[in-house]
């Protein structure tokens, strides 16, 4: 996406005024702890995203970017706290300047501000994961599978994928849940129809046979089919408008009998036991304050998840970050899973009660319809009230909350009021007292009632059919989405797993060249097991050292970023991350970053100057692509070396006639480089258990080793009869011998008079030639093409060549056999 050319930071965090020129290349900010390195990282993140994750992440409490982002002396003047970055966008071949102040972090002043540029910058803003700190690194490695999945999902922006999965699943569940009452309504309608036709089984043939018997009594032709539009009373004369409505005795008695049975079911031992069980469960939930709060909140959060949309809170209009809010609410819902489980158990027990109450309501509603037609009319208020209560109970039992209301309803309905039974009894007696209808009246009544109930049943079936189609569609969509997203994510994890293992092997090829790893997604979790020296797969924290674990974190991060951003992975900011990689593998990490990510600009911080030199020696950083902070004060911010180039600084000291400082720096640098050269050339050095080698032990060994390597190379060239190579090697060996002699380095062990310990006592004119001699000597260890230090290859076993990283220096050490 972008490369950072330069950054200017003013009054931001611990920095007063600092400009760094990255040049679009790898860059290191080095300095002891507390010198302001992370301030540079924060400023970079702020300029690119408008946020500083360090100030807004977990556990930051009352710390905020706006209040605590400005330098402490500018905390009341956020306008002054501003960061300007100049970036290049390779794909657009454009250079762009972004400037933000803490007064309005969300707004960046972008120049030039064209749509293509803004699209790229939006992408950058959407990927704050370009900044990685060690704290974040460990989340990928040592986190629990659930937490790791969250971290990786956040990195891969999978929250939307998960949100859709949860949403579709809820819709499917809700559609299926709807089928239960609709199925009950269909069954109830069928039962009512069966009673009206006095048959016991709902089949097309039996309905037609029963209806045709009544039709025959009325002299109507038989029906031959029962379709969706068939009317059982087809051809029957409509009753005269003036004729009073009367009770269809046979159907009414059947309905009253069913009502009594339904009421008896409520009073039955089975129902009483179930009601008692449910009440006990709900009471237990209700009396646990934490749980009841949880039940309430769970319902609230679940409802809220469906309403989170738009860019602001609908209550107070405060802007919110949709992704963060959803993540926050989902975390709460997850936390309440136990509560959800208890609720689900209660709902399962309640289901049969719901069916009973629905049946009572439906049958009472039918029979109270007969009450006003009786002579004299029966007052049915008690029964109607009880039916209404059953309806309310059904709604309350489905909703479940508030728990107290549900318990009260169950208690209230568990015993059928005597007034209800009396009313039903009174209607029954009124109906039973009616004269028996004529055969024709009975037939007419039966067909009329049956047709009404058939239509009710048809409507119920129509609704049920639509609901079934919806449920099937919703389930198909949900299942297919889960299957597809699982397949895509499994593919991503497989690719990342492969890339991760490959990257880790690059770093640890010396002892873990068979390393493999398993990233296993399962039920919202992400298992992560790694091979431990062929002994099996274990969690990274089980046997690997912390340094190795950090190496894994870096490799997993890089694998994920490479997968996520592909060719757009052009920038990564690693805040003290590489420091935690175990010391034995830092060189390999440098090679990894350089070779595997040649198009990525790494901006890194470290408090270890040796690490910085490693990076320079390995050409991960070039030229002056580093800044070293030497200290920090609240008034000044970081203090730094403007020019970290050792030779220039030594020259500067000499120009100031400060031989002591120049000598100290030269010695310090030679100590580092000598150790580096001994390592690269596999030079024999007397072993020290405390690893505290002195310059006098290392540099002579390195010089001596290169002399011997040139000798070996000449012997090898002779054995292969490579005269031209032999000539070049002889010249190079002579040049090197001359430089080595000029430095006197090899004499230190023999002649203390020229020992580096006495440099402090030299005058400027005497010391300048010493500097020149060592500068030229170190230059003799360098490839003339790439400027990198040469090394013996391979790292172990018989040396075969002396080569550099670019490959242009490649001197054979292997003699022709025989």
């Amino acid at each position, binding site marked *: 996406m972008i490369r950072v050319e330069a950054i200017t930071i003013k009054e931001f965090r611990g920095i007063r005024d600092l400009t760094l020129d990255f040049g679009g290349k790898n860059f290191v900010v080095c300095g002891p702890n507390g010198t302001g390195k992370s301030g540079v990282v924060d400023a970079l993140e702020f300029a690119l995203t408008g946020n500083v994750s360090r100030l807004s992440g977990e556990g930051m409490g009352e710390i905020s970017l706006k209040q605590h982002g400005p330098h402490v002396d500018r905390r009341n003047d956020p306008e002054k706290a501003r960061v300007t970055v100049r970036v290049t966008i390779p794909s657009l071949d454009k250079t762009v300047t972004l400037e933000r102040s803490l007064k309005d972090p969300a707004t960046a002043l972008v120049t030039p501000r064209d749509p293509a540029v803004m699209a790229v910058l939006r992408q950058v803003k959407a990927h704050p994961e370009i900044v990685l700190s060690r704290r974040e690194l460990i989340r990928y490695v040592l986190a629990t599978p659930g937490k790791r999945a969250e971290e990786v999902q956040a990195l891969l922006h999978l929250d939307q994928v998960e949100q*859709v999965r949860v949403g579709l699943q809820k*819709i499917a569940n809700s*559609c299926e849940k709807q089928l239960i009452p609709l199925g009950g309504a269909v069954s109830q309608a069928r039962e009512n129809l069966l009673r009206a036709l006095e048959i016991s089984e709902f089949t097309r043939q039996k309905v037609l046979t029963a209806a045709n018997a009544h039709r025959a009594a009325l002299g109507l032709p038989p029906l031959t089919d029962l379709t969706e539009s068939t009317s059982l009373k087809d051809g029957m004369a409509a009753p005269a408008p003036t004729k009073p409505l009367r009770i269809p005795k046979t159907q009414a008695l059947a309905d009253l009998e069913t009502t009594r049975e339904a009421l008896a079911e409520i009073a039955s031992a089975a129902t009483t036991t179930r009601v008692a069980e449910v009440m006990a469960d709900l009471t237990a939930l209700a009396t646990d304050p934490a749980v009841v709060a949880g039940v309430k909140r769970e319902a609230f959060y679940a409802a809220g*998840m469906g*309403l989170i949309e738009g860019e602001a809170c609908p209550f107070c209009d405060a802007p919110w970050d949709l992704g963060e809010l959803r993540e926050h609410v989902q975390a709460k819902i997850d936390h309440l899973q136990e509560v959800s489980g208890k609720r689900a158990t209660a709902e399962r027990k309640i289901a049969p009660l719901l069916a009973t109450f629905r049946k009572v309501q439906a049958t009472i509603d039918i029979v109270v319809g007969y009450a006003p037609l009786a002579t004299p009319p029966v007052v049915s208020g008690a029964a109607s009230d009880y039916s209404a209560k059953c309806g309310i109970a059904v709604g309350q039992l489905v909703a479940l909350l508030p728990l107290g209301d549900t318990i009260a309803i169950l208690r209230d309905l568990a015993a059928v009021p005597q007034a209800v039974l009396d009313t039903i009894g009174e209607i029954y007696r009124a109906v039973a007292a009616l004269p028996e209808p004529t055969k024709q009246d009975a037939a007419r009544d039966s067909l009329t009632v049956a047709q009404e109930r058939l239509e009710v049943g048809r409507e119920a079936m129509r609704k049920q059919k639509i609901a079934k189609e919806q449920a099937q569609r919703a389930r*198909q969509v949900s299942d*297919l989405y889960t299957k*597809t997203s699982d397949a895509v994510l499994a593919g991503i994890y497989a690719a990342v797993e492969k890339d991760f293992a490959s990257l880790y092997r690059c770093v640890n090829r010396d002892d873990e060249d068979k390393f493999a790893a398993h990233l296993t997604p399962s039920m919202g979790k992400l298992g992560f097991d790694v091979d431990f020296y062929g002994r099996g797969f274990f969690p990274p924290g089980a046997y690997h050292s912390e340094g190795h674990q950090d190496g894994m974190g870096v490799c997993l991060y890089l694998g994920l970023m490479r997968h*996520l951003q592909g060719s*757009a992975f052009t920038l990564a900011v690693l805040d003290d991350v590489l420091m935690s990689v175990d010391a034995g593998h830092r060189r390999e990490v440098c090679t990894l970053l350089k070779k595997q990510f040649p198009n990525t600009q790494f901006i890194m911080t470290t408090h270890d100057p040796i690490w910085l030199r490693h990076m320079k020696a390995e050409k991960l950083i070039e030229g002056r692509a580093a800044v070293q902070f030497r200290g920090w004060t609240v008034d000044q911010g970081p203090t730094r070396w403007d020019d970290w180039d050792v030779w220039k600084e030594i020259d500067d000291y000499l120009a100031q006639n400060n031989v002591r400082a120049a000598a100290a720096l030269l010695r310090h640098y030679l100590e580092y480089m000598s150790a580096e050269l001994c390592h690269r050339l596999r030079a024999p050095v007397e072993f020290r258990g405390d690893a505290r080698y002195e310059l006098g032990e290392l540099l002579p060994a390195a010089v001596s080793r290169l002399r011997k390597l040139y000798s070996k190379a000449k012997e090898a060239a002779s054995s292969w009869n490579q005269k031209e190579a032999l000539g070049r090697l002889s010249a190079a060996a002579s040049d090197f011998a001359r430089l080595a002699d000029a430095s006197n380095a090899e004499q230190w062990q023999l002649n203390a008079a020229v020992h580096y310990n006495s440099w402090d006592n030299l005058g400027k004119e005497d010391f300048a030639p010493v500097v020149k001699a060592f500068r030229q000597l170190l230059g003799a260890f360098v490839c003339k093409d790439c400027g990198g230090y040469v090394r013996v290859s391979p790292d172990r076993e018989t040396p075969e060549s002396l080569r550099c990283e670019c490959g242009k220096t490649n001197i054979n050490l292997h003699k022709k056999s025989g």
Partner: protein
Amino acid sequence: MTTALIAEGTRDVPTQVFQKFLQALGEAGAGVELVVRLQKTLIEERAFSERALKQAVLGEESQP
């Protein structure tokens, strides 16, 4: 179907998932209208609330 890429080759995993899903839905014989509605919701409008998804899955007939 090509991998979902957004500006400058960044892989947009959600869009990649949504596109694969819509393709699978079409191949599974789901109605064209359903696929079109979901495409509009997931890819064009990027609306992921339960309400928006329900509207896309069930269409106008939200209640039977």
